[in-house]
């Protein structure tokens, strides 16, 4: 902005020309943009992850083979996992940053508040932070269970060490606590996506009378498929492969 005050002295950020980047990360629209991109990329991960895990229905051999092939390409895996971690952390950081700003934007609540959107009862959009927090909790547990293999902090007493991926997964899913948690996690994730998917397009500016109705429908279908897909793993896999 052309104000009368002197411009601040050029610091490192200006020398390497990164002011645009900080504007992106600190402005409301930039934050929503990054939120949308990271969210959609995470949706891509979900789709791939579900596709791989549906092999649990195909039996031990195919699933172990898949897991083995995946872990063989460890160079790629490091890149992919680092990328995923960055996406998650950015998405979570922005959730906190924007939610804090939103909370401060209205200090005194209305005595009465009613929606004006026709037909709205209670929307997933009101619960994005809460549903996201539940999903985060679930993801952390899931990582502890099946990625990090941290036995010490596992209160359910599952001994997964040295087990084949298929057996370890079935064992985790057979535990009643994890079954409930995994099912709830999948459903809440679906609720999160039912708003998040199409909302991401809006935040990216991708709103068009020709395509937006389709994107909204796709978002609901995607949310449904992901929720039902992952929940079915927790509900049916242990039943099918009970020894």
């Amino acid at each position, binding site marked *: *902005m052309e104000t009368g005050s002197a411009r601040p002295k050029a610091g490192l950020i200006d020398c390497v020309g990164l002011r*645009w980047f900080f*504007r*992106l990360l600190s*402005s*409301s*629209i*930039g*934050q*929503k*943009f990054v939120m949308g991109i990271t969210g959609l990329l995470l949706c891509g991960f979900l789709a791939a992850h579900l596709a791989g895990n549906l092999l649990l229905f195909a039996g031990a051999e195919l699933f172990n083979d898949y897991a083995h092939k995946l872990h063989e390409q460890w160079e790629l895996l490091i890149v992919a996992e680092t990328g995923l971690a960055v996406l998650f952390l950015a998405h979570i950081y922005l959730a906190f940053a*924007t939610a804090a*700003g*939103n909370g*401060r*934007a*209205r*200090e*005194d*609540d*209305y*005595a*009465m*508040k*009613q*929606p*004006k*959107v*026709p037909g709205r009862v209670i*929307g997933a*959009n*009101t619960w*994005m932070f809460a549903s996201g927090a539940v999903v985060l909790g679930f993801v952390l547990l899931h990582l502890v269970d099946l990625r990090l293999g941290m036995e010490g902090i596992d209160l359910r007493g599952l001994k997964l060490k040295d087990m084949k991926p298929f057996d370890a997964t079935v064992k985790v899913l057979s535990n009643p606590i994890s079954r409930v948690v995994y099912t709830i996690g999948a459903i809440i994730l679906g609720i999160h996506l039912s*708003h998040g998917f*199409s*909302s991401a397009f*809006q*935040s*990216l*500016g*991708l*709103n*068009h*009378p020709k395509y*937006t109705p389709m994107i909204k429908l796709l978002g609901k279908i995607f949310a449904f498929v992901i929720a039902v897909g992952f929940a079915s793993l927790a509900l049916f896999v242990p039943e099918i492969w009970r020894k």
Partner: protein
Amino acid sequence: MNHTSTKALNLTLKIWRQAGPDQPGALKSYTLTDISPDMSFLEMLDVLNEQLIAKGEEPVAFDHDCREGICGTCGVMINGQAHGPDSATTTCQLHMRRFSDGDTILIEPWRARAFPIVRDLVVDRSAFDRIIQSGGYVSVNTGGAPDANAIPVPGHAQQDAMAAAACIGCGACVASCKNASAMLFVSAKVTHLADLPQGQAERSKRVLNMVATMDSEKFGNCTNTGECEAACPAGIKLSNIAQMNREYMKAVLFSCE
């Protein structure tokens, strides 16, 4: 409240009363009898105020000017809805026939940190003015009115710009948003000028500055719930916000600003 009344109404009003910006406020109840269903909502408040003045009490302060839906000053929350139950309607255009005999009507001011309460139902919306001051104009000297055909504007651009220009700056979008976000208002102002040839020279600078001011005025962030669109009396759409998002990202990533 979907039906319409034709006979005179007896109403209970619960109105937010607050003597000044830093004073404590509270809801106060009033009863009104024999309100004509043909009155506008503001005329109903006028009747109440006349009665209060006759009794020697302080009248309820509320903003209003044109009383025909164009000035944007009259907005209040009516039973938890910005500008009341009708869509595409300002408070002054709302008629009492929309209510039923015996109804209780709760009237509150807009609530947002960026809109501090001045008194009763009156809020300070100068944050909107500061957003406009930071870029919602064309500052190149355009001289006298040019011949209409000298500046070609495609029909759809003209229509989009005209639709965006309909924003009356009432603040219902902020009031109805659960995050008190001003994005609908700012998007109307940004897209209105971005669609027209006269707005091109300052296109990037405008969106960057207006969004920066919006953020610094402590409005919340958009979470795409669509409540603003539903409350807007002027028909500004979520697609305006998407267009602003595009304008902003284009300016951040590709302009020299």
